C-alpha cells in the first residue's frame, strides 16, 4: 500500500458514507443504552447507565438513536428511489441481477464454496465483483433488523397507541424479539462484521474505504478484480478516478473508525462475559 500512485478510485459516494456514519453513531448509541437493560443484573450495566446519566437519560438517548436509525433507513430508501429514477441507466431487471446489485445470485453461492476451498488451501481465493456475499449479507441484515428490532421497538415505545389495534401480549412477543434481535445484531456487527471488514489479515486494523470512499488501484485490483476488469473494459474506470485521500480525511477516518471499533469490541466482550456466566448458571441449575 506504500506504492503511492497519485490516484485512487471511488467506491462509495458521500451519501453512502454519511449514511454509514449515521449507522455507526446510532448503532453504538443503541447498544450502549440498550445493553444495560438487557443485562440489568450485571455490574457494568449499572455503571454504564449511571455514566450515561440514569435510566431516563439512557431511555431518551436510545430513542434519539432509534430516530436516527429510522432516519437513515428512510434516507436510504429515498436514495434508492433517486438512484433508479435518475442515476441508473440500466434496465431495472438487468441491474437487479447484475454485478452492481445487492441482490444475492448464484455467483455468491459459488463464491462461498470457493472461499471454503481457499480456507483449506484447496483452491485460489475467488474473484469478487463490486459486492461480496458477506457484504450483501450485512446489507440485508439491516433490512431484516429494521423490521424486527425497529418494529418491536416502536411497539414498546408507544404501547398505548399500538394497544388500540393489537392485544397486549404482543408486547411480550415484541420484548423477546427486540432483546434477542439486539443480541443478534450487536453480536454480528461487533464480531463478524468487524472481522470481515477490519480485523482479517488483509485489512487490519481498519478498512478506510467506508470513511474515505476511496480504494487504491492495488486494492481495487486485488479485492474486486472482476469489477476492475469490467470498468476497464467499459471505459468507466476514468469516471471513478480521483485524487489520493487527503491527509486530514485519512486521520479523521482513523480516529472515528478505530474508536467505533474499540467501543464495539468492549461492548461485545461485556456481553460475552455476561452471557457466559448466564449460560453457566443455567446449565449448573439444570444439573
Amino acid at each position, binding site marked *: 500500500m506504500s506504492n503511492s500512485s497519485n490516484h485512487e478510485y471511488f467506491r462509495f459516494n458521500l451519501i453512502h458514507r454519511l449514511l454509514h456514519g449515521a449507522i455507526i453513531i446510532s448503532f453504538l448509541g443503541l447498544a450502549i443504552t440498550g445493553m444495560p437493560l438487557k443485562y*440489568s443484573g450485571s455490574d457494568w450495566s449499572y455503571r454504564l447507565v449511571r455514566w450515561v446519566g*440514569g435510566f431516563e437519560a439512557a431511555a431518551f438517548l436510545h430513542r434519539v438513536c432509534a430516530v436516527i436509525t429510522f432516519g437513515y433507513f428512510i434516507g436510504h430508501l429515498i436514495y434508492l428511489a433517486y438512484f433508479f429514477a435518475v442515476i441508473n441507466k440500466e434496465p431495472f431487471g438487468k441491474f437487479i441481477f447484475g454485478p452492481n446489485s445487492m441482490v444475492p445470485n448464484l455467483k455468491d453461492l459459488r463464491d462461498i464454496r470457493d472461499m471454503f476451498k481457499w480456507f483449506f488451501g484447496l483452491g485460489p481465493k475467488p474473484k469478487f465483483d463490486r459486492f461480496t456475499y458477506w457484504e450483501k449479507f450485512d446489507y440485508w441484515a439491516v433490512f431484516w433488523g429494521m423490521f424486527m428490532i425497529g418494529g418491536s421497538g416502536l411497539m414498546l415505545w408507544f404501547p398505548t*397507541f399500538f394497544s388500540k389495534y393489537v392485544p397486549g401480549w404482543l408486547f411480550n412477543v415484541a*420484548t423477546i424479539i427486540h432483546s434477542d434481535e439486539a443480541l443478534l445484531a450487536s453480536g454480528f456487527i461487533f464480531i463478524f462484521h468487524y472481522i470481515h471488514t477490519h480485523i482479517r489479515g488483509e485489512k487490519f486494523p481498519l478498512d478506510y474505504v467506508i470513511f474515505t470512499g476511496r480504494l487504491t488501484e492495488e486494492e481495487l485490483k486485488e479485492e474486486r478484480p472482476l469489477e476492475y476488469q469490467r470498468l476497464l473494459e467499459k471505459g468507466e474506470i476514468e469516471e471513478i478516478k480521483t485524487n489520493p485521500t487527503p491527509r486530514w480525511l485519512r486521520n479523521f477516518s482513523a480516529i472515528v473508525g478505530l474508536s467505533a471499533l474499540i467501543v464495539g469490541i468492549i461492548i461485545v466482550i461485556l456481553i460475552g462475559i455476561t452471557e457466559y456466566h448466564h449460560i453457566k448458571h443455567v446449565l449448573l441449575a439444570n444439573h
Partner: protein
Amino acid sequence: MRKACHYYLLILLLFCFFPLKAHGITNEECLGCHGDKGLTKAGPKGKVVSLYVELDVLKKSVHGKFKCVDCHLIKEVPHDRVKEVSCEGCHKKAFEAFKGSIHEQVKKADLRPSCKGCHGKHDIKKKEEFPHFVCKNCHLSSYEVYKDSVHGKAAIKEGKHSDIATCHDCHGGHAIYKANDPRSSVYHLNLPHTCGKCHASEELAKKHNIPVANAYQLYMDSIHGRAITKSGLLVSANCTDCHGGHDIRKHIDPKSTISRENVCKTCGKCHAGIVEVYRESIHGKLLLEGNPNAPTCVSCHTAHEIKRADVPRWQLEVIRECGTCHKESRTTYKDSYHGKITALGFTRVAKCADCHGAHDIQRKSDPRSRISEQRLIETCSSCHPGANENFVKFICHADPTDKDRFPILFYTLFFMTGLLLAVFGFFTIHTVFLWLPRSWIERISKKRKKEHIGGDYEQFK
C-alpha cells in the same frame, strides 16, 4: 500563780484530747455493750429494736476495716442517743447523684429509701455483689413482671455476676428519675441509648445468643430512631414501645409483644389505620388463620431498620422481600422491563406494590384487588394513561420458557434463539475459525516474501 498556770494548761490539753479520745474508742469497747444479744431499745409505736451488732458481718463487708466510730459519731462511752449515720462524708458523688432523684423526693419519710435502705447497714457489699433485686422490696409488682422476662429469667439463672440487665442497669443507681423526666435513663428519648449499652455489642450478642447483634445501630438509622434522635419526637417508637419494658420476651414466645401473633397489634398501637387495612388483606387473613408463612408487618418492613416507604433503597429492597415467598413472580418480574429498570437501581417504574397494593393486597379473583379484572385498566392507567382492554392483556409475569402456559412466547423465543444459533454458528466457523487464521497466515507470509525479495535485492546491489 505557776500552779494555776499548770492547771490551766491541763484543762486546755484535756479539751484538745477530748475528741481524740472519742476517736480512740475501739470496736471492742463498742461490743462491750453491743455484743450483748439482749441489748434493745424502745422504738417507735412500742416496737422493740435490737441494738446487738455482729462484728463479723461488718468485717466481711466493704467497710470491714472501718471502726464503728468512723460512721457512728459518738464522743464517749457509754453514749446517749446517736445521730443517724450519714454516708455523705465519704460518698459525696453518690450523694450528689441521689439528691433530687425520685427516691429522695418520696414524701412519706418511712417509705423514702435511704442509703442503707438499698445498700444495707453493716453488710454493705462490693458493687459487683450488690444484692440483685433489692428494688423488689418496694417495687414488687414490677419485679414480678420482670422475673418472667427474657432479662429476668437469665439474670436469675446466671446469678449475681452476670452482665444481664437488672433494675439498675436500665434505671440507674442513685440518680433515678421518673420516666417522664428528661434526666431519666428510661425517658422516651434516652431509652434507646440505655438499651444500646448492651444491644450494640456483638460480643454480648454472641455470648447470649441474641439473634440481632446490632439492634441499636440498625434502630438508630431507622425512621423511628431518627425521629427520636434527630427530631426528639416523643410519639416515635423506641425500644420499649415494641418490646415492652419489664416484660420483654423472645419473639418466639407467644406472649411476647413482638411474636407473630402480637406484632401487628403492637405496630397498630401507633399505625392503627394501616393495621386495620392489613387485617382485611390476604396476608392479614392468612396470618389470622395461622398460616406460618403469612407475612406480618416486620416481614416486609423489617424490625429495627424500618425505613420511610418513599426511600428508593427500601422500595428496591422490598421487591426482594416479596420474592422470598413469591419466588417465581420475582424471577419473571426481573425479566420484564419493570424488573430490569429496578434491577438497575431506579424506582420510577412499577414495583410489586404499585400493581398489587401494599397493605391492601387481595387475591386476583377478589374484585377489591388492584389487579382484578374489574380494576386492572385503572391500575395500569395510573402510569400508562390511555391503557385499554388490549393493553392490560400484557403479561407482566411471563415465562417464555414455559411452553404450556405461554406457547406463543415460547415459540417466539425458540425461533429467535434458533436464528441466533444458526447465524452465529455459521459465521463462527466461516469467519472466526477459518477466514481469520487463513487471512493472517496470508498476510504474514506475504510480508516475509516481501522481506525476502528485499534482501535479495540488497545482495544484488
